[in-house]
C-alpha cells in the first residue's frame, strides 16, 4: 500500500498540479483584494467587518465557478497517466488490489482539493495582514466555512472521480463538471437548492449570511451519505470492470 501511495505521489510530482491548486485560489484572493480596495468605502462604509468583506470578495467567484471546475481538473489529472497510453492495463496487471488503487487515487485527489482550500485560507490571512486589517480574526468565516465547503464538496469529488476513471477522454469529466457547476449559480438562489448537491459548497461558503441556509446540518449529512454511496458504487464498478 505504501508503494502505491509513493507511486501516486511520484506521478503527480512533475504534473504541476501543486502549482495549480495553490496558485489558483491565491489569484482569486488577489482579485478579491483588488475589488475590496477599489470599493472600500462601499463595502466597509457602514462599519462592516473588513475580514468578512475580504472573505466574501475572495470567495464569491472562487466557490461559484473556480472551485467546482478545479475539482474536475484535479480528478482528471490524477487519472491522466493511466488514461493515456493504456496505462490502466500496465498498472492493474501488477500485483495490486484494484480497490486499493481506486481508494488511494481518490484520497490523493481529495488531499489536493484540501490543499487548494488551505491555500485559499492562507492567502486570505496574508492578504488581510498585508492590507493591515484590524480587529479580531473571524475564525468561523476564514477557517470554518472553507472547511465546511470542503465537506459539502465531497460528493462532487466522488462523482467526478467516477467519471474520470470511467472515461479516458478528459472532455467528459470536465464537460460534465462544468455542465453541473454552472446551473448551481442559478439553483442556489432558489428554494430548490437542497436537491442539487452542486449548490452545497456555495451554500456552505456563502449561505451563512443568507436566511435561506437553515438546513446546514442536513447538507453535511447528505454530503457524507452521497460520498459513501458514490464511492462504494465507484469501487465496485472499478473492481468488476475489464481493462482492455
Amino acid at each position: 500500500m505504501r508503494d502505491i501511495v509513493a507511486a501516486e505521489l511520484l506521478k503527480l510530482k512533475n504534473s504541476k498540479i501543486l502549482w495549480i491548486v495553490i496558485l489558483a485560489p491565491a489569484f482569486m484572493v488577489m482579485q478579491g483584494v483588488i475589488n475590496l480596495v477599489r470599493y472600500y468605502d462601499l463595502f466597509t462604509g457602514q462599519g462592516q467587518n473588513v475580514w468578512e468583506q475580504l472573505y466574501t470578495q475572495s470567495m464569491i467567484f472562487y466557490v461559484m465557478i473556480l472551485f467546482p471546475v478545479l475539482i474536475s481538473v484535479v480528478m482528471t489529472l490524477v487519472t491522466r497517466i493511466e488514461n493515456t497510453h493504456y496505462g490502466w492495463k500496465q498498472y492493474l496487471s501488477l500485483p495490486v488490489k484494484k480497490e486499493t488503487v481506486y481508494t488511494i487515487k481518490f484520497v490523493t485527489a481529495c488531499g489536493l482539493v484540501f490543499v487548494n482550500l488551505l491555500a485559499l485560507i492562507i492567502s486570505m490571512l496574508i492578504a488581510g495582514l498585508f492590507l493591515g486589517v484590524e480587529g479580531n480574526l473571524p475564525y468561523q468565516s476564514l477557517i470554518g466555512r472553507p472547511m465546511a465547503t470542503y465537506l459539502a464538496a465531497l460528493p462532487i469529488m466522488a462523482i467526478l472521480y467516477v467519471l474520470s476513471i470511467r472515461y479516458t477522454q478528459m472532455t467528459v469529466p470536465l464537460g460534465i463538471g462544468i455542465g453541473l457547476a454552472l446551473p448551481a449559480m442559478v439553483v442556489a438562489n432558489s428554494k430548490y437548492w437542497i436537491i442539487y448537491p452542486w449548490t452545497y459548497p456555495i451554500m456552505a461558503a456563502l449561505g451563512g449570511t443568507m436566511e435561506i441556509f437553515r438546513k446546514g446540518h442536513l447538507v453535511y449529512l447528505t454530503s457524507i451519505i452521497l460520498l459513501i454511496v458514490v464511492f462504494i458504487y465507484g469501487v465496485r464498478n472499478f473492481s468488476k470492470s475489464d481493462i482492455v
Partner: protein
Amino acid sequence: MGEYFRLLKGEFLKQKKSFIWPVVVLTPLLGAFLSFCNLFFRYDYLMSLEHNQGHNSWQLLLNQHHFIWAFLLSLVATIIASHVHYLEYRSNSWKQALALPVSRANTYLAKWSVVLILNTLMISGNSIYLVAVGKGMGFTELLDVNLFLNYTAYQILAITSLIGIQSWLSTSLNNANVALAIGFVGVASSLFFAQSEQLAKFLPYAHMIYTLPDPTINNAIALYYGLTFGLIFLGFGIMFFKRKEIY
C-alpha cells in the same frame, strides 16, 4: 490553401468519435434551458425590477441569459482548445504529425480553425435555442432579429481572443491541465476584470462579458479588442508552433 483544407478535414476526422460533439450540442441547450427555467419562474418579478423597466421580453431574456452563458461558453471554449491539442499528446502523435511534409503554420491554423468553428456552432446554436425559448414562452413582442444577429456576431468576434490565448497555451504546455487551469482561473475572474474597461480591453477572458448588445455595455471592447487579440495570439501561436521541438 488545399493543404490547409485537407488538414482541417483531418482535424474533424480526429473529432469524429470524441465527446466534443455532444459537448457542442448540449452546452447551448443547457444554457437555454437554464434561462427558460429562470424566466418561467421569475418573469413577472424580473420585469418588475427597476433596471428592467423599458426592456421588452427578448431583451430581458438576453440580459438574464448573458451572464451565465458568458461563463459557460468561455469555460467550454477553454476545454475545446485544450482537447484539440491534447489529442496529439495523448496518442503521442505530435512526432508523426510534424514529421509529415506539411506546413506547421497550416497544421496550427487547422487546429485553431476547428476550435473556432466548434465555438461558432455553439454560439449560433445558443441564439437559435434562445429564440425557441422566447417563442415557447409566448413572448408577445416581435422578435428583434437585429438584436440576436448582433449578439451572435459580437460573441464570435470576442471568442477569438480566448481561443487564441488558449490554443497558444495548449500548444506550449505539454500538460493540458495547466492550460486548462490557467483558462479556468481567467474565466472565473473575468467579471472582476470586466469591472474596469481599461483592464478588460487587454484581457481576452473578459471580452465575452462585453458582447451583450445593451446601451450600457461597451461592445467595442468585444468587437475590436476581441478580434485584435485573437489575431495577435494566433500569430504568437503560429510562431511558437513553428519552433516547437518534438521529442
